[in-house]
């Protein structure tokens, strides 16, 4: 998925930690095979290549992901859009779990979804392994703090202004919470696109969203980068958000 993943597992014996790490890596590889649009053999590439020509049958997990994306598309007033263009042109056939595009030049990009979804699944793996304290960082923009730091009552992270690292914009305590940050950086701007206008967001702006659910945090942090004030208000009512902050960089 073109990013890095770090995890710190506390209070486990070495063998159990290694087993857990292996399970996580297995899951990461599987999801990369699902979402990585730069890998020509991935499920996403398969859809992007063929769905404009013919309905493409997808595996059960991809099917549930697409339904999930459809649900978030509706709940965010159309602003969450994995096509970055027009999600209504993605046709999902319930009968045989196929996907087709009713418009040329449509393609799927899980850039604003995959990390949150992955972290949600990893949270479940950690829970099943009965790990109480753990900190996971998925490419800085998606962070999960389970339990607490060995010498504190939560996991504390801060957010430095990417345009000036000497300025700390925020400090956030995570206890059984996920954090997602979206925004522009000096070297990476214009990757967040408002689908209806098809215009990239170029301002020096960032959003952080804290939620128990890493996927919802991820979806909302991107959506709030492009939403109007009125849309933000309306969308907020559809989600259980712990904390949401906007930053001028």
């Amino acid at each position, binding site marked *: 998925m073109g990013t890095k993943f770090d995890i710190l597992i506390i209070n486990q014996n070495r063998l159990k930690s290694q087993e857990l790490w292996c399970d996580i890596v297995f899951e990461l590889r599987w999801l990369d095979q699902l979402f990585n649009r730069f890998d020509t053999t991935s499920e996403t590439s398969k859809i992007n290549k063929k769905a404009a020509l013919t309905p493409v049958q997808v595996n059960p997990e991809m099917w549930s992901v697409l339904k999930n994306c459809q649900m978030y598309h509706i709940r965010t007033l159309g602003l969450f859009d994995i096509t970055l263009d027009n999600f209504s042109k993605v046709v999902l056939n319930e009968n045989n779990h196929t996907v087709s595009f009713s418009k040329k030049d449509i393609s799927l990009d899980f850039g604003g979804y995959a990390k949150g979804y992955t972290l949600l699944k990893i949270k479940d793996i950690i829970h099943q392994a009965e790990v109480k304290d753990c900190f996971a960082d998925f*490419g*800085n*923009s998606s962070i999960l703090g389970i339990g607490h730091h060995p010498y504190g009552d939560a996991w504390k*992270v801060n957010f430095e202004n990417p345009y000036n690292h000497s300025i700390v914009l925020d400090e956030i305590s995570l206890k059984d919470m996920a954090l997602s940050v*979206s925004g522009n950086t000096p070297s990476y701007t214009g*990757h967040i696109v408002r689908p209806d206008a098809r215009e990239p967001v170029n301002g020096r702006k960032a959003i952080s969203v804290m939620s128990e659910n890493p996927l919802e945090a991820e979806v909302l942090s991107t959506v709030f980068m492009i939403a109007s004030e009125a849309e933000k208000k309306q969308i907020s009512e559809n989600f259980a958000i712990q904390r949401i902050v906007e930053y001028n960089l």
Partner: protein
Amino acid sequence: MSKKTPKQVDTSLRQFIKDLGYISGGAALLTTIPWLQSFTPDKVREIKNEKARIGFIGTGSRGQYNLHAVMAIPHAEIVALCDIYPPNLKEASAICPNAKTYTDYRKMLESPDIDGVIISTPLYLHAPMTLDALSAGKHVYCEKAMALNMEQCKAVYDAYQKTNRVLYFCVQRMFDKKYIKGMQMIHDGVIGNIVGERCYWFRNHDWRRPVPSPELERQINWRLYRDYSAGLMTELASHQLEVCCWAMQMVPESVVGKGDIVYWKDSREVYDSVNLVYHYSNGVKINYESLISNKFNGMEDQILGNKGTMNLATGIYYLENEAGGRKSGIEQLIGQIGNKLYASVPAAGPSWRPETKENYIPHNILEGEFHVNDGLSMIGALKDGSDEILSAFCQACITGEKGKNIVEEAYLATILCHLGNQAMEEQKQITFPEEYKIPYMKFS
């Protein structure tokens, strides 16, 4: 041209040497930079009540830059000004109304009231004017580069061997504190063995000046025409190639390169894009690049060692064992736990992007504030060593003491520029010609 008042300019060589002593340990310093040996505080005190009588040949933009600098030097007095272009002479005379004006430099050289001349003219005039001035018994300070071609360089060098007069060329990096200190660090092994040198100078400008009437085009835009100038090599690269050899304490034995007019196709005759590789006998190479239709990369004189990198133009160095920069959030977290600390870590932010280059920790070569040249001015930068070298020249006009290494460094840098141009023009590898080698040069 900035309007400098004497108060703003620290032209005191005494202070300069004092500062260098602080940063480099006094006497030991002078053995590694012998061209400063004559400028100890004691020697500066000796000339305190004397003044060098200076004449200016060429009073255009660079000449006026030098004029302001010399006006701020206590041991110098500007007595004569010469230019063939009336507007420039008029401007200079307004700055320095007591100086006598000339339009023929030969006439000016006849004056017995001039100790030394400062030549700030187009490149093609450097050699004839320098030779005439030395013959007339004047001390000479000439802008870089040394001369328009290798034959002229050799003629000037040979004349200098025979004269008892002082000769300086504006190799101002030799008088720039951050270069001096940086070179000491290089020679002390801070960056390990030198394994490569990368110098570049990027601008986005046509290198032209407005011309009041067409017949003055070649006189005013002399940089663009081959009979007057050797282009980017002599105007920009000469400084940087000198730095490379200073760092290596050697001279490259061969050069290959490509030169083109890529963007400014306005009937100019000199390249606006040059890429050269100079090769030392031990395999180390200078990669030189200059382009004047994109300024993204700016200007840098970069010395690469197996243990670090010295960016001399910006005065910053980096060490290889510090690659990776600051520890990541998770590494800081692990460190905290090891130290039983609880604090926030800088983990949150917009998506991490894969990097092709590791972050390094920058270290300043000099402590405190120092000046960095952005490389954009066609005239010259402030506090880049130019004031100090002019001050040193004026002192030498009083004492008659020749400057060590200065002519030699200017000679080798200029010859390297011309060899580079030859390699680009002839499209072949050029080996350093035997007839232009001088005893000062080491090739292995």
